[in-house]
C-alpha cells in the first residue's frame, strides 16, 4: 500500500500534491518599500522624540509609584468612578507601575517599528535530519560501543540490571506511605457513633449553640445542628464538622413518603447529613413547599420528604439519615451513628 502514500507520490511525480503543477510561480521577495521615517528626516526626529517621551513618562511613573508607597495609608479608601470604593494605595501603585512598565514597552516597540530597519531578510532552513553519512557513522559507533560492552551477549547481566532498575524506584513510592494513615473504617463513621441508647448525644443548634427541643423546630424551616460537646475551639473541629453536620427539617407526617425515613425521625422531624453525597459540599438551600434540598455546588437535589432520594443532579445516592428521638428532658438526641457513611461515595462503601 505504500505506493499510495504521499511520499510515494512525491517520488513518482516530483511533487506530492494534486497532479497538476503549481499554477502560479513564486515571484520572489517583494521590493522593500521605505517608510516615512526612512525618507523624511523630520518624521524620524519626531519618532525619536515620541520614543523618548514614553521613556520619560515611565520614569515619572516610577517616581510616582515610590511616592505613593511612601505617602498613602494601606487602609485608605477612595471613590473612583466607575470602580466604586477601592483601596487608594492599591490603585495608585497599580496604575503607576502599569504606566511605568507599559511606557517602556510602548517606547521600545515604537522605536523598533519606526526607526529600526524593516528590511525583510530570508534565512536558509536546514533539514533537521542528519544526512546519511552522519547517520551511518553514528550508528556504527554505537554498535561498536554496544558490542564492546557485551550488553547484548551477557544476557544474565542485562536482565538482572533491568530488574534492579525496575525495582529501585519502588523505594520512593514506599517512602510515601507515612504521608497519612490507612483508611480503615474512618470514612464509614462519624462522631455520632459515640452515642448509644444508654448515653445519647444532644443535637445542638449551630447558630444558637443551644440543645434543641421538638417544639423549637418550626415546620418548613431548615436548621443546622452539630453534636453536643463539639466546640469550635476544638483542635479537630474542622475535621469533625466535615462529617457531623446535620440538617434538621420538620415535615408534616402526612407528607412523608418514605416509611423508614419517618421512623428514623421524630414526629416529622428528620435529621439528615448536611454533607452532599456527590463530592461533599455542604447543602444549604431548602425549598419548604416542595421539601427539596439543593446542593449549591452541582445542583444535586434531594427530596427530604422521601428519604432524601436524589431527584436531580449528579449525586449517586440519598443523604444518610440519623435516627433521633427525645431524652427524658425532652431534648432531641441521637442514639447512634448514621446508618451509612456520609459524604461522597468510595470503593469500599457498602451499597
Amino acid at each position: 500500500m505504500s505506493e499510495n502514500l504521499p511520499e510515494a507520490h512525491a517520488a513518482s511525480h516530483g511533487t506530492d500534491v494534486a497532479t497538476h503543477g503549481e499554477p502560479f510561480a513564486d515571484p520572489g521577495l517583494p521590493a522593500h518599500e521605505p517608510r516615512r521615517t526612512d525618507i523624511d528626516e523630520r518624521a524620524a526626529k519626531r519618532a525619536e522624540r515620541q520614543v523618548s517621551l514614553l521613556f520619560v513618562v515611565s520614569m515619572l511613573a516610577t517616581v510616582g509609584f515610590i511616592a505613593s508607597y511612601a505617602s498613602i495609608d494601606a487602609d485608605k479608601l477612595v471613590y473612583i468612578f466607575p470602580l466604586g470604593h477601592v483601596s487608594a494605595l492599591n490603585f495608585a501603585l497599580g496604575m503607576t507601575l502599569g504606566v511605568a512598565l507599559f511606557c517602556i514597552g510602548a517606547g521600545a516597540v515604537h522605536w523598533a517599528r519606526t526607526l529600526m530597519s524593516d528590511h525583510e531578510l530570508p534565512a536558509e532552513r536546514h533539514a533537521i535530519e542528519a544526512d546519511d553519512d552522519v547517520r551511518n557513522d553514528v550508528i556504527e559507533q554505537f554498535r561498536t560501543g554496544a558490542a564492546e560492552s557485551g550488553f547484548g551477549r551477557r544476557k544474565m547481566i542485562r536482565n538482572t540490571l533491568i530488574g534492579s532498575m525496575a525495582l529501585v524506584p519502588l523505594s520512593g513510592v514506599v517512602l510515601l506511605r507515612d504521608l497519612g494513615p490507612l483508611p480503615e473504617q474512618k470514612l464509614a463513621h462519624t462522631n455520632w457513633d459515640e452515642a448509644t441508647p444508654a448515653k445519647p448525644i444532644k443535637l445542638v443548634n449551630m447558630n444558637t449553640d443551644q440543645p434543641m427541643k421538638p417544639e423549637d423546630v418550626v415546620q418548613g424551616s431548615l436548621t443546622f445542628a452539630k453534636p453536643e460537646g463539639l466546640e469550635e475551639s476544638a483542635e479537630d473541629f474542622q475535621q469533625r464538622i466535615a462529617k457531623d453536620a446535620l440538617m434538621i427539617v420538620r415535615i408534616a407526617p402526612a407528607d412523608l413518603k418514605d416509611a423508614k425515613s419517618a421512623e428514623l425521625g421524630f414526629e416529622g422531624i428528620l435529621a439528615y447529613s448536611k454533607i452532599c453525597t456527590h463530592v461533599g459540599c455542604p447543602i444549604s438551600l431548602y425549598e419548604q413547599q416542595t421539601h427539596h434540598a439543593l446542593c449549591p455546588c452541582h445542583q444535586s437535589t434531594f427530596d427530604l420528604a422521601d428519604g432524601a432520594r436524589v431527584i436531580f443532579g449528579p449525586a449517586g445516592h440519598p443523604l444518610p439519615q440519623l435516627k433521633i428521638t427525645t431524652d427524658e428532658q425532652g431534648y432531641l438526641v441521637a442514639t447512634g451513628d448514621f446508618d451509612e457513611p456520609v459524604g461522597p461515595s468510595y470503593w469500599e462503601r457498602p451499597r
Partner: protein
Amino acid sequence: MSSASGTNNSASKPTSTRAKPANKAEATADWVDGRLGIYSLAKANLRKIFPDHWSFMLGEICLYSFIIIILTGVYLTLFFKPSMAEVVYHGSYLPLNGIKMSEAYASTMNISFEIRGGLLIRQIHHWAALVFVAAMLVHMMRVFFTGAFRKPREINWVFGFLLLVLGMFDGFFGYSLPDDLLSGTGIRFMEGAILAVPIVGTYIQMFLFGGEFPGTDIVPRFFTIHVLLIPGIMLGLLVAHLILVFYHKHTQWAGPGKTEKNVVGMPLMPVYMAKAGGFFFLVFGIIAAMSAIATINPIWAYGPYRPDQVSTDAQPDWYMGFSEGLIRIMPGWEISVWGGHTLNLGVMVPLAIFPAVLAAIAVYPFIESWVTGDKREHHILDRPRNAPVRTALGAAWISLYLILLVGGGNDLFATHLHLSINTITYTVRVGFFVVPVLTFIVTKRWCLGLQRRDKEKVLHGRESGIIKRLPHGEFVEVHTPLAQKDLHTLTAHEQPQPLELPAETDENGVARKAGVVTKARVKLSEGFYGEGNQIAKPTTEEYQEITSGHGHH
C-alpha cells in the same frame, strides 16, 4: 627565564590575527568569550530571522505572563505562611475581627490589607495566572489551526500541551492556598473526586490529606507542590520548548519569496529584541493596571473555610470550568461491583473524560500524520480553510469546551437568564453530543465555501466595484485580475490525495488482502482529503482558458 616566557607567549598567543578590541565593551566580551564561548553561541542567533505575524505574539504572552507569575510569586512567598494552625484574626479588616481562621488565611489577609503593595502583587499574580492559561490555550489553537504542529514540531506540541496541563493544575493548587471558603470548597471537590477512584481512592485520599478531610496538612503540602514541584517541571519544559522553537526556526505563512526552505523576516538584533523586549513590558504594564482596577479573588468577602459552610456562587476559575461542566451534567450513576464495592460512575466518568479529551489533543499530530502518511517537514503554515477537516475538528473541540463551560456555570445562566437549572442541564446533556457534530459539519462547509471563493478570486479576479454597461445593454461588474504575488499566495497550499487501498491483486495476479488497520487508515484519509473535503485548486490551464478570452468579462 627568558626561554620560559618565550614558550609562554607562544602558547597563549599562537597565531591570533584578530583585531584589538575597539572599546571596553568589546574587551569584556572577548574576556567572556574566552571562558564561555559566547561568540560561537551568538554567531547563529544574533541576527536570527523571525517572521512577523500578529498571532506569533500569543506564545510571547505566555512566556511573559509566566515570568510575571514567578516574579510576583517569589514576593508572595516572602509573606505567606503556608500553615493551617488556627489563629484569631485581629487585623485591619474589621468584619472578620476576632474570627478563628488558619494562618494561611490570616497571612493572606495580611498581605491584602497590611502589607503595602501586597494586595497589588497578589492581584497581579492571579491575573497573570489567568492570562497565562488563556494565552496558552489561544496559542495552542493558533498552532493547531495553522498546522504548525506538523513535523518537525510534534514534540514541541507535546511540550506545550504538558505546559498547559501543568499550568491548569498549578492554578488550581495556588487557588487553594489562601484557605478561604471558596478554595476550601474546591479542595472538597478534589477529595470527593479522589474518593471516586476505584480500589485505591481512599488510600490516596488519606495519604494526600494526611488523614481525614480537611486535616491540617493540605495547605503546606499544596504550597510545596505549587511553588516548587510544578513550577520546576514547567521551567524545564519551557526552556526545552523555547530551545526547540529556536532550533526549528519559526513557521511562516505562504507568500512571495517564502518557501519550505527559508524563513523570511527581520533579525533578532535589533528589531525583535526591541519588539519582544518591549512587548514584555506592555504585557506586564497592562496586567499591573488591570490589577489596580479589577479585584480578583477577594478572599475577605468569602471568609475562612468551614467544611459545613459554602458560598453560594462557588465557581472554579474558568479554565477548570470545563471539568466543572462535566461533573454537573453527568447523571448520578453509582453501581455495585464485585459484591459490595461501590463504583461511583457519576464522578469517575467525568474525571476520565477530562484527561481523555486533553490527551486526544496531545496525540493529534501523530494521528494526523499517520492518517495522511505525510513524513515530510512542514514550515509553511496552512490557512485554516485549506485544511477543512482539521479546522472542523478544532472547532468541534472548542464548541465542546464552550458547551461544558455553560454546564459549569449553569447556576449563573439560570439566575441571569431566568431559566430553570434543570432545563439548562438537560440541554447541555444533549448539547454535549450534538453541538460538536453540528459545529464540525458547519465549519467544514464554511471552509469549503471559502476555498471556493479563493478559487473564484484567482480565476476571475477581484470585484472592483465598477459597473460597466456592455453595448447590448447588459450590466457587468469589472473584475480586476490579481497580481502575481496574490495568485501565488492563494494557490501555494498543497492538496494531498487520500490514500488508496492497494490493488486487490498484485502484479502477478495473486490476491492480496488489506488488513483492518490499513482499511481504517484509508477510510480516515478519505475523510480528510477525499471527495467533498477539499475544492481542487485552480490549474494553469483553467486560468489560461478564462483569461484567454472565453467567458471573461
